[in-house]
């Protein structure tokens, strides 16, 4: 045996260098994870367990008050404990409105995406552009555009009164319904984009095969199109549901300050409320709600076996 393995030290040097290169390549990703994700989250978590300072900020005195206040309240007269109904109703409204927004976006987004996906190829980009352009506009401006439509002296009410269908304006603005309308409008592109992406890949000869095999339009939609574009529906639902739950601009403008959602509640603690720890605790609560909801959704949506969509 003349040839032997290279000296041990040789191999170790190469290995060391390889591992150094690996760490250097990983560094940017690790930095992002540390400073942009885990870091802020950690700070929020820590703040939620501190005492609020009088004019905002925190005093470094650990306390569970903020977390207590997220869920419970103490009667100011007789000190009895009860669930914090104000907070719970805001949580409930947020979850409810976000779910309704998601469903609404599917209802309006699905036909829209289907329409675009079935246009001739050279027209599709133009239609997609029309969907995306509003998305490039500032969210406040888009929200106020909807306000202009539905306020008491706005376009819809003026038109209805002019045609004589109604005598007095219908109060749409500053209701839960108006928040819903605003959020559906604002988040619709987030639903249309992934839906369109999966529909564009849909082989429409499968739709024809469905018709050919005696499936009516509804059956083709339920048994063929929906199961095949399900990944798009799931992606779109997540993209709409998550920001809806934390939304505060749209509920603020459309709800007029008396129909709060979690986002508004959090904003309040860091602003007028000057209770940063409570705001931090609420933020973490929001995060928890999002995670629980997503896990439940992905589990049920993913479990439905093929052919039963």
């Amino acid at each position, binding site marked *: 045996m003349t040839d032997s393995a290279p000296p041990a030290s040789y191999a170790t040097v190469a290995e060391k260098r390889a591992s150094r290169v690996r760490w250097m390549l990983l560094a940017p990703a690790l930095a992002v994870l540390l400073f942009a994700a885990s870091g802020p989250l950690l700070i929020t978590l820590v703040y939620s367990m501190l005492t609020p300072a009088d004019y905002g900020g925190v005093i470094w005195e650990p306390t569970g008050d903020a977390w207590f206040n997220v869920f419970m309240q103490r009667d100011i007269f007789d000190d009895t404990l009860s669930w914090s109904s104000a907070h719970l109703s805001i949580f409930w409204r947020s979850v409810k409105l976000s779910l309704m927004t998601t469903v609404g976006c599917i209802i309006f987004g699905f036909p829209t995406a289907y329409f675009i996906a079935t246009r001739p190829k050279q027209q599709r980009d133009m239609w997609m552009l029309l969907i995306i352009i509003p998305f490039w506009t500032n969210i406040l401006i888009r929200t106020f555009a909807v306000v202009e439509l539905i306020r008491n002296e706005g376009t819809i009410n003026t038109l209805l009164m002019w045609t004589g269908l109604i005598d007095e304006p219908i109060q749409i603005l500053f209701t839960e319904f108006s928040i819903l309308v605003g959020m559906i409008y604002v988040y619709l592109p987030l639903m249309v984009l992934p839906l369109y992406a999966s529909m564009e890949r849909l082989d429409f000869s499968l739709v*024809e*095969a469905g*018709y*050919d*095999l005696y499936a009516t339009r509804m059956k083709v939609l339920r048994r*063929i199109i929906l199961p095949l574009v399900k990944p798009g529906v799931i992606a779109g639902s997540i993209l709409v549901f998550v920001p809806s739950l934390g939304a505060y601009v749209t509920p603020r403008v459309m709800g007029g300050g008396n129909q709060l959602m979690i986002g508004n509640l959090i904003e309040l603690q860091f602003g007028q409320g000057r209770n940063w720890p409570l705001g931090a605790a609420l933020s973490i609560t929001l995060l928890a709600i999002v995670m629980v909801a997503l896990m439940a959704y992905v589990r049920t949506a993913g479990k439905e076996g*093929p*052919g039963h969509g």
Partner: protein
Amino acid sequence: MTAAAISARNLRKVYPGSPDVVALADASIDIQDNEFFTLLGPSGCGKTTLLRMIAGFEHPTSGTLTMHGEDLTNLPPYKRPVNTVFQSYALFPHLTVAQNIGFGLEMLGKPKDEIKKTVGEMMELVKMSQMADRQTGQISGGQQQRVALARALAPRPKVLLLDEPLSALDFKLRKDMQLELKRLQTETGITFIFVTHDQEEALTMSDRIAVMSAGTIRQIGGPRDIYDRPAERFVADFIGDTNFVPAQIAANTGNDAQVTLSSGKTVTAKMPEGAALTGKVTLAVRPEHASIGAEAAGLLPGRLSEIVYFGTDTHFHVALDDGTGFVVRSQNRPNETLPFSTGDRISVDFAPGVGQVLRD
């Protein structure tokens, strides 16, 4: 006689555009029950368009389409007792093999046990019983083809439409499937309308063939009719190999005619049905229907320019004295020595009644 399974009258389809595309120009066709009927023609001649109109995916621009005498025009695809085997198979990727085959029956609202039974029979019929629970992405092209076939046959349609179903298969598999399809058609007794651009496939499988070109139907007939008695130059050229021989009508006796060739010799030739032709015509002669012989003996003198050996037969390329070319194909026999070699003066001969006068 009962009404035809499918009857098209002056069926026309124009796709608007600039310029408009006339995919089908007033085609008329009658397809009988129990037939293996083939639409044959080059790519773009309107075969798929005709098939899609029968299936209900396209609306005719004008003309009528009936099934056993009933108007199909306003019947949506899901109400037509017609099923399609798509060129791309179009199997549902989210369903198993068995679920694919049972889909049509399920949509028709058949009871579960009946669906199960029929699906089992169909899988047996196309020899896919072992694969019932496979996903369609996990089976080979030939197997997908069989599933597509079983899926379309399961609801027992009155008419089965097949759009170039074999074009994606390799040669050997294609040959097997040709026989298989023919067997399925005989066993099920369902009318098959089969689309292909492969003339050999059409000749092998069909009861009758419609030869199409540029949106029109040029000739309808049995494989032998189409091959032996092509009505016009396009058909003679598209189906098999043909020599086109310039000729002059000397006497027309209805079914036959005496034609004078460029060499001055006269021979009997078949006339196309119902054509009153005079003067200059073209004669179609199949290479295997002609022979070569000594210069003075045959109809058309010339020089042997090339001899190509093909194993089963030999092709003799002849440069005729009138300036045209002619190919003679003769079957090889064991221990044969060729009487001629390249460059020899020879002549081409064919028997009376072999040449077919073409309607140009």
